[in-house]
């Protein structure tokens, strides 16, 4: 018994020694270091700049043996990593907001060419007007580009998710580009404890596969990448992508299971908080979920059975898990920090949740909440108000047919 205790103590000490204080941006760069990327091409854009800086620093001081390509725009950054990945290299890039928009064309090329590009996205509002603060407009703009999208709630998750992203993206059954988000400033610039994993352990988890397990550019085996896909074959190539997306959940789960086995931290497609007996629930993403958790805590003190569902894997959308989590609640709210302009309701995540429930015949009162655009502070008391609204809907049995906007300076009634 004593031996076991001693071992546990030593392990705890070892873990403690790997604990550092890091910003989200540095966590992302350190993840790229620990998976030993071969090529990084990052164009610095606020609030992601520190990732580009840190990668350059890691390479300059010999901690990372990678080729850093200094590009003149995000379009080139994405092009460069796609091309590098096509030679079989492990690649990394990062962006934010307008930078992601400038990459947009290449986002489809990365997924269409099935290159396992991994990217960190410091989420930030889109122009105009220029706004450098956090919301999910940029992430939502890439939801249909064929990328796997993973949201992070804290700095540790940024690091862990990025390591898993390599496991997933480079898996022969997936081969899809993968993006991991970190909320601009809220995670990118906030210092939190970060437990690093020794590099050899990371590399035995996210193994660098030998050349040739997937089509790569090879002078000895010439092949054409990105030929014309005329009407006689384009559709079939898209079906391949769709099937890879359908295959991805199995690999994502495997990646999480293996990660937990080795490093002890557990990740699911979604995270349920106080959902066992919840009567009203709010679904949200990223760091915003922490805030919803705080509101749930406050409501629980008042005796309100509130719950929260956080979506970690946003694409492929974990519809089954979400439907199951929301099965027994009386009313569902979705807190969006992005806008689907002119949509049937304006919350993009709401549309996903609503269709998830609708096709399964789960009719229940729902509400689309939008708050926090362009870094507007959301307060716990406002999320509490949202929950109160849901209680009202649960009583009346009716959904809100229009999006409810919270925290707007408004003279007229918006809803």
């Amino acid at each position: 018994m004593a031996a076991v205790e001693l071992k546990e103590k030593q392990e705890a000490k070892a873990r403690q020694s790997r604990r550092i204080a890091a910003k989200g941006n540095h966590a992302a760069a350190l993840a790229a270091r620990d998976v030993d990327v071969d090529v990084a091409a990052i164009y610095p854009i606020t609030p992601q700049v520190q990732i580009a800086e840190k990668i350059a620093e890691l390479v300059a001081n010999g901690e990372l043996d990678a080729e850093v390509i200094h590009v003149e725009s995000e379009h080139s950054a994405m092009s460069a990593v796609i091309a590098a990945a096509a030679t079989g290299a492990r690649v990394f890039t990062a962006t934010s907001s307008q930078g992601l928009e400038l990459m947009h064309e290449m986002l489809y090329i990365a997924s269409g060419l099935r290159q396992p590009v991994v990217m960190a996205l410091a989420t930030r509002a889109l122009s105009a007007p220029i706004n450098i603060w956090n919301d999910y407009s940029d992430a939502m703009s890439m939801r249909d580009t064929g990328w796997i999208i993973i949201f992070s709630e804290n700095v540790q998750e940024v690091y862990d998710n990025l390591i898993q992203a390599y496991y997933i993206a480079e898996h022969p059954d997936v081969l899809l580009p993968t993006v991991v988000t970190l909320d601009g400033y809220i995670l990118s610039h906030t210092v939190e404890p970060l437990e690093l994993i020794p590099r050899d352990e990371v590399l035995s988890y996210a193994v660098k596969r030998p050349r040739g397990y997937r089509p790569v550019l090879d002078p000895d085996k010439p092949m054409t990448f990105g030929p014309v896909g005329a009407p006689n074959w384009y559709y079939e190539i898209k079906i391949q992508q769709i099937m890879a997306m359908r295959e991805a959940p199995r690999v994502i789960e495997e990646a999480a299971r293996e990660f937990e086995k080795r490093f002890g931290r557990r990740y699911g497609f979604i995270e349920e908080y106080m959902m066992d007996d919840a009567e009203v629930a709010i679904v949200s993403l990223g760091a915003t979920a922490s805030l919803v958790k705080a509101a749930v805590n406050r409501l629980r003190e008042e005796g309100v059975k509130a719950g929260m569902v956080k979506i970690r894997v946003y694409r492929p959308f974990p519809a089954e898990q979400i439907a199951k989590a929301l099965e027994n609640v009386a009313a569902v709210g979705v807190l969006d920090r992005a806008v689907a302009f002119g949509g049937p309701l304006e919350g993009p995540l709401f549309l996903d949740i609503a269709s998830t429930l609708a096709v399964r015949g789960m009719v229940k009162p729902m509400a689309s909440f939008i708050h926090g655009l362009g870094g507007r502070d959301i307060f716990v008391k406002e999320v509490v108000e949202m929950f109160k609204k849901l209680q009202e809907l649960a009583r009346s049995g009716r959904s809100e047919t229009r999006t409810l906007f919270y925290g707007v300076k408004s003279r007229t009634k918006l809803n």
Partner: protein
Amino acid sequence: MSFERFLGKKYPETWEDLPLAGVVPWPGNTEEVDTSAWRTFKPVINQDKCIRCRLCWVYCPDGAILEVDEEYTNSKGRKFKITFKVDYVHCKGCGICAYECPVKAIDMVPEER
């Protein structure tokens, strides 16, 4: 779904056989592409008028003019060792050969199928 799976079959029939991302895993494949369906007019060489200057061979953007070792004697009794012919599988019917021919020996005639 490893890559090897796609290499078993040269010509895919369904999406399952298709090489990943539609890459073409063997070189020189454009030779196998039949571009004749693009044509509305096809070049027809009048062998009697042709002076074997080879300009059509030079100008054809698709290498669709063939130089063949075939003797030919024209109506004026002039003897040629070679003959120029059109490779109708790869000719796309652009008409450049007919435009460049200095003696107007090539006619573009409507394609009839």
